[in-house]
């Protein structure tokens, strides 16, 4: 017994996100928002396009976050954030953090034009994509962030997704933005550190958060953290930062775990034949090697 001691806390105690929200059980996207707001605080304006979070925060007349939130059209997350940020600066407010918070469909697909525009102008915003690898809010349709091999309702088992997840991170790095980071909700300390860093940098910051979706991945809600951890341990989704063009890998697994267990925990990969699993393994290993080389050359 240790009731006299305080609970050990490795992340800020204060909560911006309040319970009562509408995320599914074990939702990775709700944890992503919880951590991001723990870092960024309440002097913030967030805009949210069509995505799960358009529902999670709650219907009119309620809000679970109770921060200024602007719900906006699917493809406009970055443009609305640009408007808020530049507008505030025009009236002398340079302290309020402006963040666009979008899903992978709203970022990789329909929102990429506005995102590219904001990044090219280097507008002072944090753009978060919480990536659950499909259009989950509309009922699990494939997006260009859906990984090779996955089942979705538009890539059914017999015609599972073929082709690689769009490498949006490289596209964003190519824009020359001052800061890009990947984060996983299984590593909240790392994630919060990245948000705190992003908040201090002027210009466009892009944070790609891996957020498992038990509903869309057909996984056990209790396994959300496990999946978000395994994706890093298998090098499927490495945690790294690119600051002013310099790559830094935050976690380098000593012994890269094989994919099998990660795939087996998700119904969306249940159909995959062994040769596809081997192909995935080979390709992820190659991608990891490329990332290591990027760090070596641009570190």
């Amino acid at each position, binding site marked *: *017994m*240790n*009731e006299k*001691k*305080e*609970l*050990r*806390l*490795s*992340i*800020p*105690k*204060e*909560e*911006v*996100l*309040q*319970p*009562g*929200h*509408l*995320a599914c*059980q*074990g*939702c*990775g996207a*709700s*944890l992503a928002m*919880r951590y991001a707001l*723990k870092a*960024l*605080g*309440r*002097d913030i304006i967030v805009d949210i396009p069509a995505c799960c979070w358009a529902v999670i*925060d*709650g219907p*009119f*007349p*309620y*809000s*679970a976050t*109770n921060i200024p*939130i602007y719900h906006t059209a699917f493809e406009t997350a970055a443009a609305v954030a640009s408007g808020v940020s530049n507008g505030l600066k025009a009236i002398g407010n340079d*302290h*309020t953090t402006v963040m666009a918070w979008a899903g992978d469909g709203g970022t990789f697909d329909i929102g990429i034009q506005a995102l590219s525009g904001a990044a090219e102008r280097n507008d002072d915003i944090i753009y978060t994509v919480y990536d659950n690898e499909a259009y989950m809010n509309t009922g699990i349709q494939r997006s260009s962030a859906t990984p090779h091999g996955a089942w979705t309702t538009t890539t059914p088992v017999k015609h599972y997704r073929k082709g690689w997840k769009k490498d949006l991170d490289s596209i964003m790095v190519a824009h020359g933005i001052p800061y890009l980071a990947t984060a996983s909700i299984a590593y*909240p300390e790392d994630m919060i550190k990245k948000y705190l860093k992003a908040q201090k940098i002027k210009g466009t910051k892009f944070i790609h958060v891996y957020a498992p979706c*038990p509903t869309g991945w057909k996984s*056990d*809600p*209790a*396994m*959300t*953290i*496990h999946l978000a951890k395994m994706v890093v341990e298998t090098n499927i989704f490495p945690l790294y930062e690119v600051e002013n063009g310099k790559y830094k890998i935050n976690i380098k697994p000593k012994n890269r775990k094989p994919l099998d267990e990660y795939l087996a925990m998700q119904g969306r990969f249940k159909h995959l034949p062994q040769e596809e699993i081997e192909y995935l393994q080979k390709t992820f290993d190659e991608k990891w090697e490329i990332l290591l080389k990027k760090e070596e050359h641009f570190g």
Partner: protein
Amino acid sequence: MLLQLKLPSIRLNKEISVEEKKIELNKVDEFPPMPVSLGSMRVNKTSSWRNFRPIIDGEKCIGCGICWKFCPEPAIFPTNPPEVDYDYCKGCGICIANCPVDAITRQDETK
């Protein structure tokens, strides 16, 4: 009832307080001009979503804070030992799956 939010409110001019009760809008004149939040989602008790409840064994608990850290609601109070907020716990089981000393067990909700 007002929900007082004492938070990383650096640079804010005041403590934020948010209405924590059901908002009744019975007449059009009571509506704001656009859909805008007037209260906290805390009115939405999500306990009914749950098939089982996590029970934290205070004897076994080592106070590591992992269950609190990984709760997506959040519905675990950061006390030592932590306490589950059963008004909101949706029963996802993340806390159970991540407890390093198996101090949290599941108890089926009888309906």
